[in-house]
């Protein structure tokens, strides 16, 4: 039948546009219908919401695990306890990595297309309604309109029109026989608010896509004075980040108060930016943001120089991330004068009765040597052993906070400290040095935060004060301790402790979807404001000698009949006999 009709009416189909010319069996037409269907869009949004909720409630694979087969297997094994036999099928369908699955991307893409199709399909109609409104309605509409008003008696057309114009209506008037018709229109452009809101949804989803495809993030861990590239090896946008200075402030109880990093950014061989970065106020250059995300205060800069050539052959700032026990000791003489009051580093290891101990040597001014020992895994409850090597050797056992008198001296163990320690794995060693392992480093009297010594603070390793000292174990037969700037010369190699250095963790990020998110947010707010708060109105009036009929359209739940009544009264109408319906 359809074919016969088409054959009998050549040219009709083409005149109605290609979409209308396609039959419902046409897959393109079916797809178009599906994408422009509001119910389908709602179903999509509900599905996305539920899936996103699942992505929040179900543990998702951490970034460092994703893509690493071994780590993923270990991570999934952990989840077996919670999800049991469902773990494997859940992983197979991507429920542990929902936001990176292909089907989630497809879901987002379909939503974008659906929303875009909705906007596109509605736009011509809405635009036509705005620009080419129906100005003349059939007489029966005055009896059926959602908002209507019948006025018996004389209505002053001029005053009605003037009243409408005062209320910001655009008014058109014409005469048909004895009847005068008015068409008045206000804020019709506000109909675009709905489309703007929908467009915002598209922009948001596009922002998510851009963020996923284009976003960049790189973590740099920099020592003061060092430089690291933003991208590994060569990159067209390659930049270097130099940590010029790292700052940190701590409260007396050890709580961090403020972190800040002074950075210099280089690109193409030039310094392009010098700035200060904090956690919440990053530096920004060419769309990249440089956030401070970490601080580590216990670095030791060590330099090795070949004395023959005078060249530096090693310059590294080593992060001393381990902790080593040390003893806070005070020794007073019989007159009450303090001979020693400091943290004693225990660089050596001993075994006594198969028990491992950390040990260190203390020399008094008179040449007396004392050996201090603490168990290798010492805690605050362990005793400090002091071997007094005087004329009558004696072993003292001191609990934390305890004082004992011996040989006319008062020994006070003020407590255990755990000082920063680490290894210098690649330290160049002269041939003469016989080392049975990597060189070990321990740093004493460390400074907590920039310019704030640990005096007055109560963090886990309060220091006895003084300048930072680096104890190097493995270079010489006995551990060597260097103050900042001190050097140690061993067989043509000069080892210099340059001082304590701080580290900053800098996160470099770029996410150009930020702009889209802002645009989308603005669009959705403006769209919703226009939709809900701009009072758009449309009014038709037919005025005859015996009275007037008014019909109106208003958005939402507006009581437009009352507004029409007010307009009519302003126009001099007497509303004694009126019929109205708000429906």
């Amino acid at each position, binding site marked *: 039948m359809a074919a016969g009709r088409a054959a009998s009416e050549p040219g009709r189909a083409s005149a109605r546009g290609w979409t209308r010319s396609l039959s419902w069996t046409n897959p393109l037409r079916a797809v178009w219908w599906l994408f422009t269907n509001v119910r389908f869009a709602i179903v999509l949004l509900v599905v996305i919401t539920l899936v996103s909720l699942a992505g929040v409630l179900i543990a998702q694979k951490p970034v460092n695990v994703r893509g690493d087969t071994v780590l993923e297997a270990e991570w999934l094994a952990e989840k077996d306890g919670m999800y049991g036999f469902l773990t494997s099928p859940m992983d197979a369908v991507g429920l542990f990595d929902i936001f990176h699955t292909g089907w989630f991307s497809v879901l987002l893409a379909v939503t974008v297309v659906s929303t875009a199709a909705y906007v596109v399909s509605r736009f011509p109609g809405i635009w036509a309604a705005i620009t080419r409104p129906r100005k003349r309605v059939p007489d029966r509409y005055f009896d059926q309109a959602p908002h209507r008003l019948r006025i018996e008696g004389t209505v002053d057309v001029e005053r009605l029109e003037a009243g409408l114009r005062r209320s910001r209506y655009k008014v058109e008037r014409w005469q048909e026989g004895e009847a005068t018709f008015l068409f008045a229109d206000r804020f019709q452009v506000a109909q675009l608010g709905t489309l703007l809101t929908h467009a915002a949804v598209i922009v948001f989803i596009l922002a998510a896509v851009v963020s996923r495809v284009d976003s960049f993030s790189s973590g740099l861990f920099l020592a003061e004075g*060092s*430089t*690291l*590239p933003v991208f*590994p*090896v*060569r*990159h*067209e946008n*390659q930049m*270097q980040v*130099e940590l010029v200075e790292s700052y940190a402030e701590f409260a007396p109880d050890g709580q961090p108060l403020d972190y800040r990093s002074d950075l210099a950014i*280089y690109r*193409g*061989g*030039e*310094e392009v930016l010098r700035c200060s970065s904090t956690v919440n106020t990053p530096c920004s250059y060419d769309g990249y943001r440089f956030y401070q995300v970490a601080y580590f205060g216990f670095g030791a800069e060590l330099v090795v120089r*070949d004395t023959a*050539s*005078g*060249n*530096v*052959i*090693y*310059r*590294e700032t080593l992060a001393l991330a381990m902790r080593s026990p040390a003893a806070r000791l005070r020794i007073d003489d019989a007159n009450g004068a303090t001979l020693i009051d400091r943290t004693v580093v225990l660089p050596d290891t001993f075994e006594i009765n198969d028990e491992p101990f950390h040990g260190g040597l203390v020399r008094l001014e008179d040449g007396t040597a004392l050996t201090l020992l603490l168990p290798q895994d010492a805690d605050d409850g362990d005793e400090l052993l002091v071997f007094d090597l005087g004329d009558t050797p004696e072993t003292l056992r001191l609990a934390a906070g305890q004082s004992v008198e011996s040989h006319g001296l008062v020994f006070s163990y003020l407590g255990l400290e755990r000082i920063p320690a680490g290894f210098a*794995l*690649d*330290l*160049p*060693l*002269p*041939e003469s*040095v016989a*080392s049975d392992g*990597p*060189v070990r480093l321990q740093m004493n009297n460390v400074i907590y935060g920039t310019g704030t010594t640990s005096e007055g603070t109560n963090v886990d390793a309060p220091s006895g004060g003084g300048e930072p000292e680096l104890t190097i174990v493995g270079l010489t037969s006995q551990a060597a301790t260097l103050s900042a700037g001190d050097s140690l010369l061993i067989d043509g190699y000069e080892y210099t402790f340059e001082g304590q250095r701080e580290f900053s963790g800098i996160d470099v990020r770029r996410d150009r979807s930020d702009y889209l998110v802002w645009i989308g947010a603005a669009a959705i707010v403006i769209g919703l404001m226009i939709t809900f708060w701009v009072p758009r109105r449309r009014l038709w009036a037919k005025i005859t000698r015996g009275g007037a009929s008014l019909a109106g359209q208003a958005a939402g739940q507006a009581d437009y009949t009352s507004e029409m009544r007010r307009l009519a009264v302003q126009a001099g109408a007497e509303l004694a006999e009126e019929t109205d319906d708000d429906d």
Partner: protein
Amino acid sequence: MTDNATDLPTPKRRSVVRRWLYPAAVVVAIAAVIWWLEAGGDGGVSSTGERYGPVALPVALAPVGANVSAEEGALAPDFLLQALDGEETRLSDFRGQPVVLNFWATWCGPCRKEMPQFIAAYDAHREEGLVVIGLNLQESESIIRPFVDDFGIDFPVLIDRDGEVGDDYRLLGLPATYFIGRDGVIESAFIGPFQAEERGTNVQGAIEQSDLEGRIAAILGSGEDDGGG
């Protein structure tokens, strides 16, 4: 009416502007943006107006059909770069001399560790004509210079500002070292650090200094009969 009549040509001019000038302006603007983006990453221009970066080998040094690429047995790709001291250096200028081309950066720990080996090798073999080139990847002069002074680097240090030479040599990581014979052919290439034979410098993935010496000996002995390529 008269006014309307005299105004008639104006819309016509607007029409021409809209039809031709506006699109032309858009095209020019797009072209300008593309040109700016392309030129933005420029590694600089030499005193002769030549662009720093990879350059074609002079015809006299590259026989027709010769394989020019960053692989063993091929002619080393040529480049023109500015040295730290401002001098312009072209790799092909060293044809006839054995060249050790070391890609490095100050941020690269293994590069720092192996640098003393190259300094020592250069000092040991410079009299034999060995050329060592330290090719810094995309760093600033203000970062490189203190390092060079500190470590006492006395061989030429060139700066690949936009990394195009690194691209030409298909760098996947640093350090990377190419050993180029007197005939301009890459004798061997090594990705990773060389380590000193002293104990303690156990850089992961490093190979011994003796291997560096061996590779240098190979290029010192290469093409001595027909040296000068």
